[in-house]
């Protein structure tokens, strides 16, 4: 049995997409999580709900709105016109934007929980020891919340690897550009290339198992550390 085509191309593309998405999510999600954990504004839970919407929204719905937003007549198209393109839909940057929004809750939630669990006291103690809020954040809050960051990063990465609906709506099926793993599997099945499909599918099973196991081990470590 020989495997046809470049079966590894979608794998590489998927890893690139997931890595980039995870990095962006940590950069964007951390301040959001901090604000949600620390703010005393009454409407912060509304913001939290907004961030969490992709948890329950059908991916096709999110994909539909993204398609409109990224298309030639949306803000995405406007952005794309800066470098002479017509649209962000069906492009790799478009996929990244979609993935960031779609995986946001999986990153923000664990980090926010870790900041919540820490309580006010460590930051107060740091402030009474002359640490500026910035220094206290990096030397106290981040290390204390590190299990939350790890969980968030793993979940965000894994969830991006596994996404299908959103990619289908805004990415299409362009090899090397938007054809990610889940789409590739679908594609191989459609064209009766069962061998290729099962290699990728089995890979996903192993990957998912490792992710869940890693999460459980982290959780166990956290419960042991908790003061």
């Amino acid at each position: 049995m020989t495997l046809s085509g470049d079966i590894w191309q979608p794998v590489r593309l998927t890893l690139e997409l997931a890595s980039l998405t995870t990095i962006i999510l940590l950069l964007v999600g951390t301040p959001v999580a901090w604000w949600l954990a620390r703010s005393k504004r009454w409407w912060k839970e509304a913001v939290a709900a907004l961030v969490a919407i992709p948890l329950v929204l059908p991916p096709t719905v999110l994909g539909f709105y993204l398609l409109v937003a990224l298309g030639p007549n949306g803000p995405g198209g406007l952005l794309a016109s800066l470098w002479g393109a017509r649209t962000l839909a069906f492009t790799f940057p478009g996929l990244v934007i979609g993935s960031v929004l779609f995986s946001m809750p999986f990153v923000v939630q664990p980090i926010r929980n870790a900041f919540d669990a820490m309580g006010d006291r460590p930051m107060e103690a740091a402030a009474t020891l002359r640490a500026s809020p910035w220094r206290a954040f990096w030397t106290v809050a981040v290390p204390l919340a590190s299990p939350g960051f790890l969980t968030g990063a793993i979940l965000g990465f894994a969830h991006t690897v596994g996404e299908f609906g959103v990619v289908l709506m805004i990415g299409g099926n362009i090899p090397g550009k938007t054809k990610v793993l889940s789409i590739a599997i679908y594609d191989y099945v459609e064209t009766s290339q069962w061998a290729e499909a099962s290699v990728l599918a089995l890979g996903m099973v192993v990957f998912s198992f490792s992710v869940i196991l890693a999460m459980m081990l982290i959780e166990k470590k956290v419960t042991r550390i908790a003061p």
Partner: protein
Amino acid sequence: MTANTIKVDFRGRLGRFELNAQFELPARGVTAIFGPSGCGKSAVMRCIAGLNRMKTGFCSVAGDVWQDEKTFRPVHQRPIGYVFQEANLFPHLSVHRNLMYGYPGQAGVGAIAFDEVVALLGLEKLLERSPRNLSGGERQRVAIGRALLSQPKLLLMDEPLSALDQMTKDEILPYLERLHAALDLPILYISHDMAEVERLADQLVLMRSGGVIAAGLLTELQADLSLPLSVSRDAAVSLDATVIAQNEADGTATLAVPGGQFLVPAEPLRIGDSRRLRVLADDVSLAREQPSRSTIVNVLPAKILSIRSQSDHRVTALLGLGANGAGARLLSRVTERSWNELDLKTGLEVYVQVKGVALVRREPSA
């Protein structure tokens, strides 16, 4: 005007109660903030630290204004050390790195040196440990050390012993006394335990339901009949005394206070040392004539300066030692019945019989 004082004035709602606290005291020695639980002691301290912010507030320390209508200096720019009820050590850092967290880096020729603090608090053996593996008392000692090493100009301690059991308290109190003696650092110390206050404090801020009812020298406030302290169950006076004789044969020492002397059972003391004595109002009885033979060794002439009747048919009298009443102040609590039988009244010269005198502070105060 506010040269070397701590001056605070905080008013406003904070959570469930109204805070309305003002006092101004010299910024030296240990000042205890004393009052029942939930009277706003911690709120005042958190306001001084800048951890809470009252809309209407004023706070200046040694002439430096930390808060007024226009100013609110953020916590990390106030030269304070803060010891919380729970030690609040950073669990991800070793004891050594906890201690160094607030230590000024490059310019750090701190007046309070690392080795000095480690020795003072007995931390030598703990440095490489993790805070997770420390006992409650050890944690609190590290927390005190960490606060000291940030080179504070004012040390704030919010019931640092209340989360500890009695044995651990007894283990830490000597360290606190040494701190007081070794460092010239004003300390604000919250407590609801009068025994702790008598042992450590020089000045007292008395609080009740969000307000300050009195602030001044501990010895003076204890002897003020208008304050609730004088009618509390363990009403007492603290006397700062000097050791003048050591009687090794019977294990006692003679200590002098203004207007009199006390014979106190004590471990060997050095002559000339100062110690603090505590005399409970219930341990002082009064006699019109000098009793001829008695097991009570401390009988001193005194004068009744003023009295306060309690609702439970007892009378608390304020006495001045010496025939003219100019010496140290004592409180005596007796029943109304014996008060009337002896025909006692203000201005009368009497003899006080002091049944018990306790040495409460072992280290001489600074």
